[in-house]
Every structure is written in structure tokens, then in C-alpha cells.
């Protein structure tokens, strides 16, 4: 396991700081990383970036952006910049949890299903395809409703929705890799199957898993925002971009643009950041394969 992780890390690092990586892919990865890391920094350093508490009145209500309140204040007089920086924590926690969970379910299932084949593989594939074909947001909504609104439950709901993405990709790759000579050799040498799967096949999948990881992180950001926009994630007054955007919706007609513009911009930025990393990495892989 440690070996796989260290290999993965070298792999990621060699993609990020490479000599052989060419133009466009690298530029995309850099741009995406810059955005994501800036938001991660915001989340970690939140108390240093603002003197205000995101859940306490900081001044008059509905103040437009100023030096005192760079993102303005909302109907309760909360400082929106404070809510933005602390909100980064909420979204990052949910996204990280959900992606790790769906990877932990989807990758092993895909590995075993693809390697062994047979009836269980067919049944699993059908189940995963059905989930995959369905509007993920609607499925996440019904799961979040059944589990009850909370940060952790939102993460579970999002995780379930993205399991098929990992499953399909991993299974598809295993189907072709398992026919290769080195797998046959490993089998002939009597190496146990689980070792073949995790030590011989899995490392080949890591670049693709990285791509799916960042692309599904982008989707997870949007799904988390959608769930909290619909009131199915963290409960108020916890700062969260999707929820703040929903609150801002009530003041559209009053023209309080800062209550809408900033939370939505942050959601879009973070999603774009992850998507850029994913696209850059996949461009990189495509180039290597050529």
C-alpha cells in the first residue's frame, strides 16, 4: 500500500513539475492547481484572513462591498468575506470526503469485477450503468433526503452517485490490462490473485484514476453546492457557499448583487480549478500514449 502511494505521489509530482511535460497540458494543470491551492489556503488560514466571525453580526445589514467589508454584508449583517473564507472549509471537507469514499468503493469493485468477470460482473455493471445513466443530482437529492440533512450525509450522498464513474473506468481498463503478458506471467508464477490485482494491475491505473479524481471533484463541488442550495447539506448558520447563494436569491429583486455574485463565483472557480487539473492530466496521458 505504501509503495502504491509513493508511486502515485511520484507520478503526480512528475506531472506537476516535469521536464518532459509539454505546453498545454502543463499550463492547464498549473492554472487549475493555482486556483485549488489558493482556495485550500483560504480554508486553512481563514482566521488570519478576516477579523470577523462568519456567524455573528459584523455591522449594518446589506452594506455593499467596501474596504471594511470587501464582499459586503448580508441581511443579518454577517460579513460576506468571512462567510466566503470559512465556507471554503465546508465545501472542501464535503468534496474530499465524498471523493475518497466513492473511490474507496468504486476502485476495488471495478478491479475485482473486471478481473473475475462472470455473472457478478454482469450484474454489477448493469447496476452501475443504471445509476450512471440517471441524473446524478436527483439521485443525490433523494439520498440526502433519506439520510437527513447534514454535512456528513451530503458527503455520503455525493459519494454514492460517483461510485459508477470510478467503477466503469477501472473495470474497462482492467479488462484490457488483464490480457497482457505480464499478468499471465504473474499468474503462471503462482502469485496470489489479490497481489496481482493490487500490485501488478492497480499501478497501471493510477494516471487514469487521477484524471477521474479531479474531474469528479469538479462535479462534486457543483453537486455539494446544489445540495446546500436546496437546503440538504450543512444547516445554517454554518457558512457554506451554496446556502449563501440560496439566501442571496431572496434579494435579487432588491439588486443586492454582492450576496449572489461572490458565493456563486467561488463555487464556479473551485469547480473550474479541479476541471482544469483533470483536463491537463488527461491531455498529458493522451500524449504519452501516442
Amino acid at each position, binding site marked *: 500500500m505504501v509503495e502504491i502511494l509513493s508511486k502515485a505521489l511520484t507520478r503526480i509530482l512528475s506531472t506537476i513539475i516535469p521536464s518532459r511535460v509539454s505546453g498545454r497540458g502543463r499550463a492547464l494543470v498549473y492554472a487549475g492547481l493555482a486556483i485549488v491551492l489558493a482556495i485550500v489556503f483560504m480554508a486553512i488560514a481563514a482566521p488570519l484572513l478576516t477579523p470577523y466571525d462568519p456567524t455573528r453580526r459584523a455591522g449594518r445589514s446589506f452594506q455593499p462591498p467596501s474596504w471594511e467589508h470587501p464582499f459586503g454584508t448580508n441581511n443579518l449583517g454577517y460579513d460576506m468575506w468571512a462567510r466566503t473564507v470559512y465556507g471554503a472549509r465546508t465545501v472542501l471537507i464535503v468534496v474530499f470526503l465524498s471523493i475518497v469514499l466513492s473511490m474507496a468503493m468504486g476502485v476495488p469493485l471495478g478491479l475485482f469485477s473486471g478481473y473475475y468477470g462472470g455473472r457478478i460482473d454482469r450484474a454489477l455493471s448493469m447496476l452501475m450503468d443504471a445509476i450512471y*445513466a440517471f441524473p446524478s443530482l436527483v439521485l443525490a437529492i433523494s439520498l440526502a433526503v433519506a439520510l437527513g440533512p447534514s454535512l456528513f450525509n451530503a458527503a455520503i450522498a455525493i459519494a454514492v452517485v460517483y461510485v459508477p464513474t470510478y467503477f466503469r473506468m477501472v473495470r474497462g481498463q482492467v479488462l484490457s490490462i488483464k490480457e497482457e503478458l505480464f499478468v499471465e506471467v504473474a499468474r503462471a508464477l503462482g502469485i496470489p490473485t489479490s497481489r496481482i490485482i493490487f500490485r501488478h494491475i492497480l499501478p497501471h491505473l493510477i494516471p487514469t484514476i487521477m484524471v477521474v479524481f479531479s474531474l469528479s471533484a469538479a462535479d462534486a463541488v457543483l453537486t455539494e453546492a446544489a445540495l446546500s442550495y436546496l437546503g440538504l447539506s450543512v444547516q445554517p448558520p454554518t457558512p457554506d457557499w451554496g446556502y449563501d447563494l440560496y439566501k442571496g436569491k431572496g434579494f435579487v429583486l432588491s439588486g443586492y448583487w454582492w450576496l449572489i455574485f461572490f458565493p456563486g463565483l467561488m463555487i464556479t472557480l473551485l469547480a473550474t480549478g479541479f476541471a482544469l487539473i483533470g483536463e491537463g492530466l488527461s491531455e498529458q496521458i493522451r500524449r504519452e500514449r501516442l
Partner: protein
Amino acid sequence: MLIVPTVLILYTLVFIVLRILPGDPVLAVLGTKNIPPEQLEQIRHNLGLDKPYIVQYFEYLWNVLHGDFGTSMVISGRSITADLLERLPATVELAIAGLIVSLAIGITTGFIAATKRDTKLDLGLRVFGSVTYTLFIPWLGLMFQLIFAVWLRWLPASGRIDPDVGLETVTGFYILDSIITGNMEAFRSALSHMILPALTLGLVLSGPYTRLVRTNLVKALESNYVLAYHARGVRGSRILLHAFRNALIPVVTYAGLQFALLLGGAVLTETTFDWPGIGTYLVEKVSYRDYPAIQAVVIVFAFFVGVISLIVDLIYALLDPRIRY
């Protein structure tokens, strides 16, 4: 794709999720107020929740197959089927408008990018295609409302039609209805209410089409048959037409696959614009924890996804003369 198993799997999944997971739906709806246990039993009995799960499963399936989604748990006796039928046209109208906008934007930008390949314009359009995809729908919708409804006052901010225009509903599709009844005022109103939601949904979903049309048109223009046309001295615009037609085939397949995204996006678009469709219905029911209604929406969506993939297969055959069923 196989419609029947897919819908059945989703039916089963949502049944399991909503019934077997922790939490009593009846208590969730009524709150944990002090309700006498006999009364709780009575409510459970009326909803059929006291039967074994397996019986509930097949009974409900039987009813659904006969178009009966049961009654709402919150407003007792309200038929869910009637609610859904009332809301369905709004969602379909929005989805079709969104699809048209996304195809128009995607195909145009993809076409321009492919014909101006490797120029700054091409790069710009490709970036546009990837960025629009990660826009958060409610954000885009609310910004449109701010700009076009609040500041410029060009278009209405939300809703589906002005209630004063006195539209007589025939099909439930307001734009169609206003044409049938010849009510020009209603037509204008319905159309102006449609523009912002359709633009929001369409813009967000257009990115993949840009990329798809560009890639396929580039591939088609490099293929041997295009070379052969050139050799025979066929006019350039005619060649482009041929290549373009072939490049559109994958777009149709993709449009079908993307229908699920379109429906998911419609939920967010509807809530943002207070559009009275299935999406807002779902969100309303979610806040009441009205389980039978939520279940019904999921099944209807699953059915939609299945039917659309069938339609896509048929259109595919029309576009590609090599395929015959």
C-alpha cells in the same frame, strides 16, 4: 441501452433508499409531536406502510405500471399522478428549449473552431466550452436575473407566464397553447419568460457539444472521402456540408446520453427561476419529506432517460444510412 432493466433497477434502488434506511417517514412528516400511537398506526395503515416490504414493493410496482403513483403523504388524498401530469409540460418545455439553445451554441462554436483550427479564435472557443461546463447553474441564472431583469428590465425575472394574459391551457405547453388559441399576448409573455431559463440551462450544457463538433469535424475534414471530393473538384462549401453532416452523428448520441444532465440541470434551473415544473415539485416535496412523491419523481425521470435513449437510437438510424433496424 435496455430501458426495462434500467428503470426497474432505479425503482428498486429508490425503494430501498427511501424505505429501509433509518428514520420513520411518518414521524418525519408529522414531526415528533405527541401523537397517540393508535393514530400513528392508522396513518401507517392508510399509506400501506404496515405491510411487509416485499408486498409493498410489488404492490407499488403494480400501481406504477398502471400509472398510479399513490397519494401524497403531506396533503392527504392528493393524487401524485395528477400533480406530475400538471407539472410535466413545464419541465419538458424547458428541457427542449435548453437543448435547442445548447445545440445552437455548441454546434456554432464547434463549427467555427473547426474551420478556424489552431487560431486564437479556436483556442478561445475551446476555453469557453470548458469554462461554461463548470458554471454553477443557480449562479448563472441569478446573475442573468440581476442583469436582464433587475438592472436592464428587459425580461421578467422568474415564473412561466404573466397571469394577466388569460391563457387557455390545451396541452400545458404554454408556447404551443398560445399559438393554438391565437393569443399573441400570451405567446409574447411565455416566450419572454422562457428566454433566461433556457439560456442558463443551454449555456451550461453547450460546452461538450463545442468540443464534440470540433473534434469530429476536424476528423471528417482530414478523412479520405474529403480528399477524394477535392480531387474531383467538388466545391468547398459542398464538401463542408458533407463533412458537417457526418460530424453531427456523434452529437445526436451524445445529446441522448446527456439527457440525464439536462434533467438534473432543469431541477436547478427551475428552482432558480421559480419555474413550476417537476424540479420545483421535487424540491417542494423534499422540504416536507413527502416520500411517495419523491419516489414518483425519481421513477418518472428514470423512465424519461430510458425513452430518450430509445429515441436517440431511432434518430441515429435516420442520420446514418448504414444502420437499419
